[in-house]
Structure formats: structure tokens, C-alpha cells
């Protein structure tokens, strides 16, 4: 594997892990407040 490809793989893994973490964090924070993530712009109940 070339160095460029190796670097690309590192960056993709890093971003994938972090995105997953933040999605989980957002979900957790909103759910403990009794709220869904509500990404479809519906009014809160």
C-alpha cells in the first residue's frame, strides 16, 4: 500500500469514527431530555 493510500485510509477511519461518536452523542443528549433528534423538521410534541 502506498503512503498516500495509507494516509487516506487513516483519515477516512478517523472521520468515520468521530462522525459515529457525535451522532451517538447527539442522540444520547437529546434522548435523556426526552427529545428525538427530529431531523425532519416536525414540531416537538
Amino acid at each position: 500500500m502506498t503512503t498516500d493510500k495509507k494516509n487516506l485510509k487513516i483519515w477516512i477511519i478517523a472521520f468515520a469514527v468521530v462522525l459515529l461518536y457525535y451522532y451517538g452523542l447527539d442522540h444520547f443528549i437529546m434522548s435523556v431530555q426526552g427529545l428525538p433528534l427530529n431531523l425532519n423538521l416536525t414540531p416537538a410534541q
Partner: protein
Amino acid sequence: MKACSRKLRWFIPGLLLVSVMSLGITGEVDPFGFVGDVYASEALVDEALTESKAELKAAPKPTTEDYPGIGISSRSIVWVLAQMHLFFGALVLAVPIFVIVIELIGVKTGDPRYDDMAHEFMKISMTAYSITALFGGTLALALFLLYPDFMAYIMEVFGAQMMVYASLFFMESLFLYIYYYGWDALRYGNSKWVHLSLGLMLNGVGATLMVVANSWATFMMAPSGVNEVGAVVGNIWEVMKGPLWNPINLHRFIANIAFGGAVVGAYAAFKMMTARTQELRAHYDWMGYTSNFIAILAFLPLPFAGYWLMAEIYAYSQQMGITAMGGILAWLFIVQAVLIGTILLAANYYLWSGMSRCEGSRRYDGYIKYIAFVLVVGFLIWVTPHTLILTASEVAALGGSHHHLLGPLGIMPAKNIAVNLMLVFTFLSFQLYGRSNKIATVPWADMGNALMVAIYAVAIFNIIFAGVYYGYFTNTVYKVGSSVMQVGSTLTVIIAGVVIDALMYKNAKLLPVNWGNVSNRSQYALFALPVAFTWLMALMGYVRSSVRTDWHIYTIMKDTSPDNFIPAIGYAGNMMTMVTVLFLVFVLFIFWIANLSGQKQAPPAAAVTAGEGGVA
């Protein structure tokens, strides 16, 4: 029989004494159920019942005539004294907290410079301690003189807790003096651990003192353990643990450390700029850097503690929250933004200037302009007001009560984005500074860097997304809820940054740091920090206290004194400024005293000659 009756004669009053004392301590009418016991006579039961009725008396309702005056506004006197006591109290409670940490680092690293620095920090705290006590005593006298009914009620509610506070003060003094004066006597080996334990006790007592005193302030804002007319119905614990107690405890604890760090930073800057030798200049440069590090590290989570406090205020009384952030006091939050912006800009500027100490920092120079850009834009958004006081013609010219930019940028979602990004980018400055004299040697350094960049990038996106999407496109409940997401994003950056760097730069190759090789301009940033912190404390302390409006104790005891109104912003601003300047004058006095203790007068020439002659 006689002996028995003699014993009983002493036993009953003794029992009564214990019961009465326990009333004071627990605040309960009959904590042990002793009234009516076989040992007590009917007369004693009646007496106890009478006492219990007396215990359940309502809060006093003084009239304007009941407030003694001395010709000067009573509120102004108490305002200045209370604020000065709080400034110095914050300083003397905070300094030992980071001193013990620095001392411990000195023990762990074996570097005596840490120990010397910790000792020197304590020197500043010692003079401040006496001044704290003097202002505290004067404040108590002023309160008893000018607000006698209020103080009588507070004494009744808190009872024996006041004596606990006084005992803690004695213990604080005891530990403080042993800790400071025993520094050199307990410097090495096991003795050092004894010294550290004394420091721990000092901090334990100091923290307890603070939370006890906090309970008086929070009782005034959100009383608990009393009924609707102010009669005490709970024990002392129920009186203390009101809904705002812990938010205030946390907020003050963190804020004190930030404030203490800023004040000792100014001392280090003063000493560095007056240093005659390069060695001293290097020492005080390092001391100033450490102080700034403490101040800003404590300051970064502070807005979140403040947010929690405000959320609890709103939860306790929406009216109180609106008075603070949507009513007469709302404009002061704009001033708060200016002061916090000043703190962040000064702290960042100090770090960027400090990078000149190390050649390795050149690789990060290019990032500084972007950090500065985000800080300035964030600062401008934060100080953008939502509403303006306008004339009819101005409203007509504007096309409505809100400017097309003030409308969206003046509300909380925009400010939440701004403040979180400012904190994230301030931490970035810290991180770059921390990395500037190191080169990572671990094999996973590339992965660590990629992870850190990804954390920053996604956190920034998440903060902006949460603020814009939930703040402007859904309803209010999401707006409030999503602000916690922003806090989570910022805290993730800070915690991940500290952990990743600690692991990645373990056994790193170190580049030389030239302590003392820093511009004098950067030292003025260290002076700016305590000025802004002090002003900020005066400002927000005033806001916190004023949300009670015309109540001494919210909903329980009305303030009917001639000063029972929220003063105009200009008047309040002048008071805050005056007390800030007064504090700074005292701080300069403390610096002078600390400096004086290190000076020795040279013996007169004649005496030296005579001495020499004697020897010869």
C-alpha cells in the same frame, strides 16, 4: 434516694439543654421525640410546646422606618463591602487549590522550581487572607447595623450553622498558617506528604466554608426549608440544599480558580517586567504562563456551569429568569459578552506571543490568523443585542423593531454557536502552544493527528448545525435541548485534546524553550485578565443578587428599605467599576507587600565598618 433525686435534678436541665441545642442544630421542633418522655414534667412539655410555636414564626415584615440609616445609602455600603469580601474570599480559597496541585507536580517530577512557585503563590494568598477577614467582619457589622430585621431572621433560620461557619474559619486559619509557615520545615521525604496533607485539609475546610456561605446567598434567591410565610419547617440541611445551591457551588468553585489564576498571573507579570536578571525574568515568565494556564483551563468549562445555574433559575422561577435575561438586567449580559470576549482575546494573545519562546512553534504560526478571525467574529456575534431602545423615527427608518441582522444574531442560538466556537478555538491555541516544543515519537502519531483534526472538524460542524437547525427551524423545546449538544461537542474537544496529547507526546522529543524570551506586550495581556475577571465578577454578582428585585428573601421577606429597587444600569455600572478599581488598588498593595517581604535594607556604612574593625 437523695442521691437519685440530686442526679435527676441535674439530668432534667441537662436533657433540656441537649434538646434546645439540637433544635438549633437540626432546626427541628422535636428531633428525638423526648418531649413528653417520662423524665419530663408537664410544665416542661408546655414549655417545649411554647417554644415550638415560637419556632414557627413567620419572617419579619419591617417597614421603611425599621431600617436604620447613617446618611449614606445602606445598599451601597453593603454592596461595596460584600463585593470586596467576595473578591478576596474567592482569591484566598482558590490559590491553595492550584498551589497543592503544583506542589504535588513538584513532588512527582522532583523539580524544585514547582515547589518554589507554589510557595510564592501562597505568599500572595497570605496577605489577601487578612484583608478577606477584615472585609468579612466589616460586612457583618454593616449588615447587623443597617439591616437588623433581615439579619435577625437569617440568624433564626440558619441558627447554629453560623457557629459552624465560625469554627471553620478558625480551622481555615490554623491550616493556612501551618501550611504556609511550615513549608520549609516540611519540605522533603515523608514530611512533604504531611505538608501536602495539611494543604488538602486547608482546601477541604476552604471548600466547606464556601458552600456554607453559598447557602445563605441561595436561600435569599430560592428559599427552602421554610413555609410560604418564612417559618422554618425543615432542618438545617433542608434549608441549605435549595434548588440553586449546587449550581452556585460549582460555578463559584470553578470561577474562583480562574479568578485566582488571573490575579497571581498579574503578580508574575509585574515581577517579570521589573526583574533585573535574565534568570528572574525566566522564572516569572514561567510563573505567568502557569497562572494563565490555570486561569483559562478553569475558565473554559465556566460558561457551562453558568448555563446550568441560569437553567435552574428559570426552572425555579421563570419570572426570575426573565428578569435576568429578558428584562431590565438583560443589557448587562451584553456587557458580560464584552468582558468574556476581552478575557478570551487576551488569553489567546498571550499564548500566541508566548510561542516566540520556542522555535518549534513556527510550524503553527499560519493557524493563528484563522483562530483570531473566529474569535473576533464570535465576539461580534456575542455582543450583538437583540433589541435596541429606539425612537419612533429610528424604528421607521429600520423598518421594524429589529434590524435584519440583529433579529437572527441577537438571540441565544447565534450566541451559543459563537461562545462554543470561541471556547473550541481558545483550546486550539492552548493545544498548539502545548505542542510547539514537542515532536511526537509514538508510531501512531499520524492516526492521533487525524483523529484530533476530525474531532475538531465534526465538533465545529455539530455546534453550527445544532445552533442553526434547532435554533431557527424547529420550536423552542429543541432550541434549549440542542444547546446541550453544543456543550457536549465543546467538552469532547477539550477532553479528547487533553487525553490524545498526553498519550501522543509521552516520551516526545523536546525542543528548547527560552523562558523570559517574550515581549512585554504579552505581559499586559496578563494584567488585562484580572481586570476583566474582577469586573465580570462584580457584574454578574450584581445580576445574580438583583434578580430578587424587591425581596430580601424571594417571596418570603420583602425589602421595604429606601433602596428596594433595581437601580439604573448607569448607577450599577459605576458601583461595579468603583468596587473593581478598589479591589485592584488592594491587589497592588498586596503585590507591594509581597515584594517588600523579599527586600533587605543594607546595614549602615558606619556599622559595617565598626563590625569589620571588631573582627580585625
